[in-house]
């Protein structure tokens, strides 16, 4: 009988798993503790505000991707399709709806409580509105809408900031006060925003460590773990600050020892290619997908997906001195709320700043907010930077769209192209 290979995990991944387990356990016990539950979305999330009211945030996308990684998403998607959802509907939505129809048992096996409030932070994904419209009916629950303006002209203007602040003041905060029965506590919020800024500083340091050669981290496959605490229920807590401080120390040690990233099969010994990746990863076959890269010594040094909740690259940090304004700016900074020229600039800058050898786009079948415009961005980055570009397709949590042979075939060509650029004349495997 063959032995199951031991999966290597970074210290931070183990810590995070424990944090998530405690989070889901906490959610399951809200019935006893009386804590109120607010469902909201990761892009432009208002975690500190929700936590400042003593409520527990729930992120349906996180439940969906966790279910995807644990091979549970297909049965939920089928359930939603049986109910009438089309194959083309976002698979996060179907996974979430299916999970609810099956008793709302979350990825860890514990029950996710029904929402007391749906806080829809609309940051450019039209599906979000329809998603919460559905949930509002299914749970018979109130919805509060936060309309975040799209940064079509680039920067967030003072009028745009004021527009979001007004909504926070007149709609979101009153809704949270009503649901939780607590008054808005600005001092508490300021404290949490200060903690958020500390964690953000350390997180940015961790991601920028990939500018080293070899990079001590993989900024995409491991990066999705690194963004976990900051884009979910932990930003604004001491726990989050501790997590990123500890991650930073681990990374510093790896840099000092000249070590490469850790993969599920151990450390990458030789950094063969440095890549920038655009688009979310596939969750259903996450490890298989990652293996296609680390087997070739390909390290992702920067990825746009790690800005899914909000972007810190241009210096944004939560500012406790201006709580509502800073939250407004944060909401507008999430990656899918940026204009296409801004997204293109992010990618080109990554290629240059992280000394990347190529750009790869993983286009997600059911995610229009990420996928729209990707081919155009790909061409523009190719023109601007001169690095080889590649294009692959998969999906978030629908395993039916994961085609190993197609991905491998296309990645092979991409790596061949990189070889041609990196070692002209040499072309053998």
């Amino acid at each position, binding site marked *: 009988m063959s032995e199951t290979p031991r999966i290597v995990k970074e210290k931070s991944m183990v810590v995070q798993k424990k944090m998530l387990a405690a989070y889901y356990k906490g959610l399951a016990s809200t019935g006893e503790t009386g804590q109120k539950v607010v469902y909201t979305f990761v892009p432009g999330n208002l975690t500190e505000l929700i936590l400042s009211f003593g409520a527990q945030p729930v992120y349906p996308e996180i439940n969906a991707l966790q279910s995807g990684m644990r091979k549970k998403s297909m049965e939920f998607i089928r359930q939603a399709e049986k109910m009438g959802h089309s194959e083309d509907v976002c698979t996060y939505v179907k996974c979430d709806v299916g999970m609810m129809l099956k008793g709302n048992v979350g990825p860890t096996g514990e029950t996710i409580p029904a929402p007391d409030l749906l806080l829809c932070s609309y940051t450019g994904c039209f599906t979000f509105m329809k998603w919460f419209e559905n949930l509002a009916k299914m749970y018979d629950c109130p919805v509060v809408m936060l309309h975040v303006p799209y940064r079509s002209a680039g920067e967030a203007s003072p009028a745009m900031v004021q527009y979001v602040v007004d909504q926070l003041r007149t709609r979101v905060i009153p809704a949270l006060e009503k649901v939780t029965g607590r008054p808005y506590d600005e001092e508490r919020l300021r404290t949490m925003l200060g903690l958020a800024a500390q964690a953000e500083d350390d997180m940015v340091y961790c991601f920028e460590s990939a500018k080293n050669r070899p990079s001590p981290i993989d900024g995409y496959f491991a990066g999705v773990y690194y963004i976990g605490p900051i884009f979910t229920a932990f930003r604004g807590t001491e726990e989050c600050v501790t997590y990123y401080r500890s991650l930073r120390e681990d990374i510093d040690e790896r840099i000092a020892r000249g070590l490469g990233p850790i993969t599920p099969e151990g450390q990458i010994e030789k950094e063969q290619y440095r890549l920038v990746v655009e688009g979310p990863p596939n969750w259903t076959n996450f490890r298989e997908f990652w293996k296609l890269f680390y087997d070739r010594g390909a390290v992702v040094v920067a990825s746009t997906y790690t800005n899914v909740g909000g972007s810190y690259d241009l210096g944004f940090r939560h500012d406790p001195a201006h709580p509502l304004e800073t939250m407004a700016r944060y909401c507008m900074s999430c990656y899918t709320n940026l204009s296409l020229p801004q997204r293109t600039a992010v990618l080109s800058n990554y290629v240059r700043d992280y000394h990347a050898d190529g750009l790869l786009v993983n286009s997600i079948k059911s995610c229009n907010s990420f996928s729209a415009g990707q081919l155009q961005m790909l061409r523009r980055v*190719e023109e601007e930077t001169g690095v080889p570009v590649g*294009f692959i397709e998969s999906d978030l949590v629908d395993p039916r769209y994961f085609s190993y042979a197609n991905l491998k*075939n*296309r990645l092979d060509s991409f*790596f061949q192209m990189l*070889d*041609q650029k990196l070692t002209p004349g040499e*072309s*053998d495997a």
Partner: protein
Amino acid sequence: MNRTDVYTMGVDVGASSVKTVLMSYGSGEHPEILFKDCRRMRRRNPSVVADESMEDALSVAGLELKDIAYVASTGEGEMVKRKRGHFYSMTTHAKGAAFLVPAARAVLDLGALHARAMKINDEARVLSYRMTGQCASGSGQFIENITRYLGVSLSEVGALSLQSDHPERASSICAVLAETDVINMVSRGVSTPDIIRGIHESIAQRLVKLLSALKADSPLVLTGGLSRDAGMVEVIRRKVAEDDLGLTVLTHPDAIYAGALGAALWAGWRHFKLQEKASAAS
């Protein structure tokens, strides 16, 4: 350096067939093809099919494996047991195409599972590339499935396509949609040449998009299995002209062997390089 009697072999394992080329470097500068073979896999183990093909090459040339200076595989050929090295298919197709048409500045590899457009320089180095998306509509396997459905053989496809007067357009987005279109065409009594030509046009539409995105230079050489489908070649020529891409579209009777040929040439390059290193060391 004496290159007389140096033999190399290239084995290209594709999705539906194995191609083998045996080359002799002889006394001239330009190596020549001694043997070429294209063998359908027909659900057999590719490694076994490659072995058979290599045996035939040796037998026809009156050689033994030890006489071959370097055996190189390409494509999915990493499982070829008797190879010495493996070369990536993009570089082998580029090398093979440039050997057949030295002026080539772009290559369109039309394989069973994908199509890939490459821009190359005068040394056959790949400068950039574009590939079809995940959908199989732009692939040779799709044509093969359709011919099975229509009850015609693959070798008839080109001539039938050229007979078409009123091609019926099929979906160019998805192979499954296109297949449904074909079933509908058959039930409507559309002639086989018009159906095949419609399929060629839907595939060519995707290919032209690839070439346009690549900003390919002229001349363009077609390689891979579909390069010997005269109907396909004709439609690509027409579409390239309609879209004003300024490309001369060329093919070659041996273009289907481009991958194996390129592997045999890279094998020679590697062999002589190793020889140089060895003589420098001694």
